[in-house]
């Protein structure tokens, strides 16, 4: 790609990242449930955009399809079914705020430690060419076929469980 255009691309990626972070703060601070859900959708779309900038188009599209298309829809559906839909504001915090903060900061410390430890090869032989869909398919149905099948079985079990629980009332 051309130098001028890639500079433009870099600026765009940083702008998207900034918007995603602001939206992520919005998810946990906005007092309106529906607005919080919408900002979550923004975060997920921003993540997909970052995936695209890293040439992981397949991952980006799956992110949009699963998270924005399906999971967000379920979340908003749940929000619309709540009785407090018309409330202007709902407190975002409760008494467990401080313990939660401790746990999260511990997790953050571990993550930062690991990130600092990892070597980040940029031009080294550790960087492969972009992973194509074919490579992904070969990995999923070849090397990693066992985890793949286990996940399928777990998902089926979850589905059947959900149906059983939902059916109990009738």
């Amino acid at each position, binding site marked *: 790609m051309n130098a001028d255009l890639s500079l433009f691309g870099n600026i765009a990626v940083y702008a998207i990242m900034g918007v995603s972070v602001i939206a992520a703060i919005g998810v946990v601070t906005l007092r309106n449930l529906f607005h919080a859900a919408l900002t979550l959708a923004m975060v997920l779309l921003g993540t997909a955009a970052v995936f695209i900038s890293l040439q992981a188009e397949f991952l980006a599209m799956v992110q949009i399809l699963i998270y924005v298309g399906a999971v967000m829809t379920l979340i908003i*559906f749940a929000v*619309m079914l709540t009785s407090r*839909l018309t409330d202007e504001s709902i407190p975002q915090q409760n008494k467990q705020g401080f313990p939660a903060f401790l746990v999260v900061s511990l997790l953050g410390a571990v993550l930062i430690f690991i990130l600092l430890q990892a070597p980040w090869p940029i031009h080294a032989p550790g960087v492969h060419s972009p992973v194509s869909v074919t490579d992904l398919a070969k990995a999923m149905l070849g090397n990693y076929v066992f985890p793949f099948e286990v996940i399928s079985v777990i998902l089926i079990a979850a589905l059947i469980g959900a149906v059983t629980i939902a059916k109990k009332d009738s």
Partner: protein
Amino acid sequence: MDALFVNLKHGILSMAGTFAPDWFVAFLSMLISISAIAVLGPLIMMYLTLIERKIVGRMQNRIGPNRVGKFGLLQPLADGVKMLTKEDIVPNTADRIAHFWAPILIVVPALLVFAVIPFGRGMTAVNLNIGILYFLAVSSTTTIAIFMASWGSRNKYSIIGGMRSVAQMVSYEIPMVLSAVPVILASESLSTGAIVDAQSGFQWFVFTPWGFAAFIIFFLCGVAECNRSPFDLPEAESEIVAGFHTEYSGMKFALFYMAEFMNSFTVSAMTVTLFLGGWDGPLLPSWVWFFFKTYCLIFIMIWFRGTLPRLRVDQLMGLAWKFFLPLTFINILVAGLWFFTGPVARVVSSCAILIASFMVLSYLNKGYTPEKRTYRFAE
């Protein structure tokens, strides 16, 4: 003639290349593709409204719009002016942000999808190697905009319409994705261009048993996805005013309308790409074939609207979950069988399996019809 538009773009680019720097030519190349799509989308939508009104008019034994211009050809422009000059009404209790952004956000995915549609030989704006996945992913984000519209309006009918719409879109997305799987298996690619290439020379996927079944399922799910009749429950005007766009007027309403019409075009175009060979066809230029096939499907959609009554909610959900979903699973297996059996055996076996499963599923889905009541004393 075939490469008319491709040559036009190359001509402009080589002319610009004589005096402008390289990065400007690259930028111009993007700009041309983007503006072609940005113009094509609304243009198709405008004349789709006229075509629909004309055809539905004929089906209902009327003439349809014929006052503005010859054959009413300027009617879309008159409608556009009317929409722009109408007052923009925002309900007092509406959520300003959601109400304002919903009509804007609903047009974005509808336009973005145009990027991967192969309009003719070498006429895909962005030939992504994950074209189908892009189409499915981007069109699935429409639900959020519909939710914003229905929730932001603070109107009962809007919320009911939004709920119906999202339940419908989530249900029909699954059989739609699964019915595209055999095509991906057959063409060994997710790219829309490669799928059209795999069908070149009248090897259209619709001519195979699994392709035919998948074509019908995909098209019907597509009709349901863009909330068109007979699946137009979200905006059923006789039940819930206008569903999620009840509280919109003027240009905002026009944007919802625009997204809906562009969606029905892209769904038809995608069906043509996946099953009807895309731009493949003899004699005529490739893009003429593409638009001809697409408008045939759009005609069928309008025909549906002119003839079929609206489904009930339970029928709608039952169709997706109890009929299309099992049939698509069977269809994927049939497609697998097709590639591993002999030329005669595969036709016979896959036809037999599909017809048998169709019969079994229709038998299992047969609705409960109460016995005819006999009146002993009333007569």
